[in-house]
């Protein structure tokens, strides 16, 4: 069978999800390989050699986190995006710590999923562009300049570093723990998590000038933060439509 674009192993026992995604993903350039349980996933990984794995946590034969652990044991390097109805922070943090790249709570929208998949694949290729843009936000890393539309934004060194880290992992959830480690090194977690929140709060205020527009930095309650890569100017869209 001839295949085009990145190969996606979709591990989910729910027929509607399998059906929908196998319709939606190919037009976006992906080839979808279904797996309906953990065993099948572990076996198919060998033959399919996927570039990306979408994994549900509630599988009939084993817990999704166990699948992640075994995949990582077998040195599968393909990024894993967890797609699950479980909303508990512990599930998210647990998956991310076990080796998942990202976590997406069901139900999700297709643009959301595509943005996350794109980010996951990009982070593996690990090339960083000189300029990053989403909606009005523009960051020029060579010149160390940040702007919203035409307005230049003045950031402190810590705020800039934080933004840089989020851009580097753009589209993916970064946990508090990971961010603290990357910003301040091996500092005590409990003392610094508040510092991180306050710094992020400052940063967001400087970037998020109009509270009615979508945020660039999205809070994942209890887990961490994510820099949005998908364009979400819904107000403009909605106005166009009406």
């Amino acid at each position, binding site marked *: 069978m001839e295949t085009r674009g990145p190969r996606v192993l979709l591990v989910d026992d729910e027929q509607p999800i399998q059906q929908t995604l196998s319709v939606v993903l190919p037009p976006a350039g992906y080839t979808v390989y279904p797996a309906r349980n953990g065993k099948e996933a572990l076996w198919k990984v060998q033959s399919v050699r996927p570039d990306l794995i979408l994994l549900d946590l509630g599988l009939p034969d084993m817990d999704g986190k166990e699948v992640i652990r075994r995949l990582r044991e077998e040195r599968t390097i393909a990024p894993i995006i967890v797609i699950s109805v479980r909303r508990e922070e512990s599930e998210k943090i647990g998956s991310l710590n076990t080796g998942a790249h990202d976590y997406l709570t069901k139900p999700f929208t297709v643009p959301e999923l595509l943005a996350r998949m794109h980010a996951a694949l990009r982070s593996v290729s690990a090339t960083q562009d000189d300029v990053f843009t989403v909606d009005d936000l523009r960051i020029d890393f060579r010149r160390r300049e940040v702007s919203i539309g035409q307005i230049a934004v003045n950031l402190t060194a810590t705020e800039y570093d934080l933004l840089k880290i989020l851009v580097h992992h753009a589209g993916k959830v970064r946990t508090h723990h990971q961010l603290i480690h990357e910003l301040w090194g091996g500092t005590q977690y409990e003392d610094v998590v508040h510092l991180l929140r306050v710094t992020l709060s400052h940063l967001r205020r400087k970037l998020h000038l109009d509270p009615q527009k979508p945020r660039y930095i999205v*809070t994942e309650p209890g887990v961490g933060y994510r820099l949005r890569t998908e364009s979400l100017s*819904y107000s403009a869209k909605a106005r166009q439509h009406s």
Partner: protein
Amino acid sequence: MEGSSGETTTRCQTLFEEFEEAIAILSPEGQVLELNQAGLDLFGYERTEIIGMDAARLLCSSPDDFHRLQTEMEQRGSVKDYAVQFRRSSGKLIDCLVTASGWQDKDGSRGYMALVRDVTAQKETEHSLRSLLRLSETLNSASDLDSLLDALVEQLLELTGAESGSAGLRTSQGMSCGHFIQESRVIPLTYLCAPGVGWAGWLIKHGIHYLTNDAAHDPVIVPELRERLGVRSGMAIPIVDGEKDVIAFFAVYNKGGGAEFTQLDVQHSLSAARIASVAIHNRLLYQNVSALAAFIQSLIVVSDLEEILEVIGRQIETNFKRHSVILLPVNGGLTPRFRSTEFVFGESERTAATWSWKHGQDAGRSTEILSAAQAHYVPLKVRGQVIGVLGLEVKPGTWLPNVQRPLFSAVISQSALAIERGLLEQKVRRLRFFEESDKVQNAVLNAISHDIGAPLAAITTSLSALLTSHGALDQAAERQLLETADLEARRLHRLVNNLLSMTRLETGASTVKTEPCDLLDVVSAALEELGPSAGQRQVSFDIPKDMPLVAMDFGLITYVFINLLSNAFKYSPPDQPVEVQGRIIDDRLEVLVVDRGIGVPSEDLGRVFDKFYQVAESGSSTGLGLGLAICKAFIEAHGGRIGLENNPMGGTIVRFVIPFHEAATSWETLKL
């Protein structure tokens, strides 16, 4: 003649000598010619010291007194019970009554024969009686116990001629000593004597008065007191009630003029103590009655069982200065339902309490049964039924002073009645709850079938229209149908998720997970979630730039905003702005969501947060019923409140507050 005269004289002299009262024969000038033995004893002189001396100069405290007596004698020839004050050889003054008549010898020599009666003791008794009467009057008109004790000490100083004195009341720990008065000045000195310590403590132990005229070597007196007041002599008198219980005491120190306290002083003081006893007892009874009235009053205003137990425990602590425990039966055993923090409820306590409960009698310390326990356990009875047990800590000494026992019994019976009321209230509430929960279940079913049924219907209709259109619809219409399905599906998802969260919170299956949140971030998340419907509306923000991070559950509060904002959008015209205000007031975050819409009828303002209010009302519009109930549950899970009021400018204001605590790292101090 000589002989017979001598004989007469001798006989007279024998009579004269044997006469029990003092008889003096004086010359017209006032020289003492003769004085019998009683007279010598009265004045305290030897015969040789007094015969031939000038009576006025030697014996009279004021010579004028004597001259007045002489003048009287000359004018009338006799006096009867004439009051004169004499001075004994020791210097002590004695009050006497003189009955005298002129005397003339056969040989014509003249003089007076005077009969002198010492009435000092009589006068003192009169004085004492008057003092005691005054004491009785003063004590009975005292406004409170303190002024009563002050007055008692003052009167005693007058009664006994002492220089200083004090008084105090019996307490559960011993005897409080205070009300020290010296030279009409109150000395700020109070202390407590345990039984056996000091004179006051001695009185508790022995129940009789204490007297010493050699305080320097007294083994009982509190040494500091001896130093401070310079006590040389003194006596302490117990004040006992009808059952011989010492309820108070007083003491006087240092008799005036360096004299010693006598048995007479003791007698007078004991009389004073009897008078004081009645007055103090009355006062204490009055206090008990007021305390009981206050106790009943404070019980009337509470109906919740836990509160009733708390009130009883606190009142017992106030009135009896002791710790307590209240036990009620649970599953065939006793469980402490109120316990003073200091009260240690061990195994021996449980055994005594259980015995008291099973037998309906007192048990524990100071009783015959299981007296190893630390507390005295009293069954709480209502109409002969034991509904619980109250344990009162027993301090060293007696179980309770007699005067407090009637109060205690009254408190126990009132407590039993109040606890029974609390138990009944609980039962009624439980019954009502079952009744209510039936109603609630119906409402839940109605609400769910409405709030879930409506979006499902919209989704089904839209999608079936698309599936069956066979290309008959234009692109705009197709998109309209898809957007409707999408919007309703999102709404349904949110509702189901948050119904789950609410149920988990209400059943205790989960708790709010708070983390420091940026209020603006929460509102933005809500607006993003609302999607296009928010994008078309004008939302203004009034949130201070330096608003600190507030501890809350990001997801739950986001849902509250989604709900409040979507209501505001739904029930106000599209061209009217919706405002979100947020501020920190003292220790809470206050948030207002203000719209200029149709408002809520004022009679319904209090009910909109009731579960499923709107559904019961009309069932026409979506969301409000379950949504606001969920919001209320979420805000209350944060320890906050939510309310709705009409905007004076038209429309509705939803106001919620949640507790706020300043975080260790404040916004101001952290400029990175």
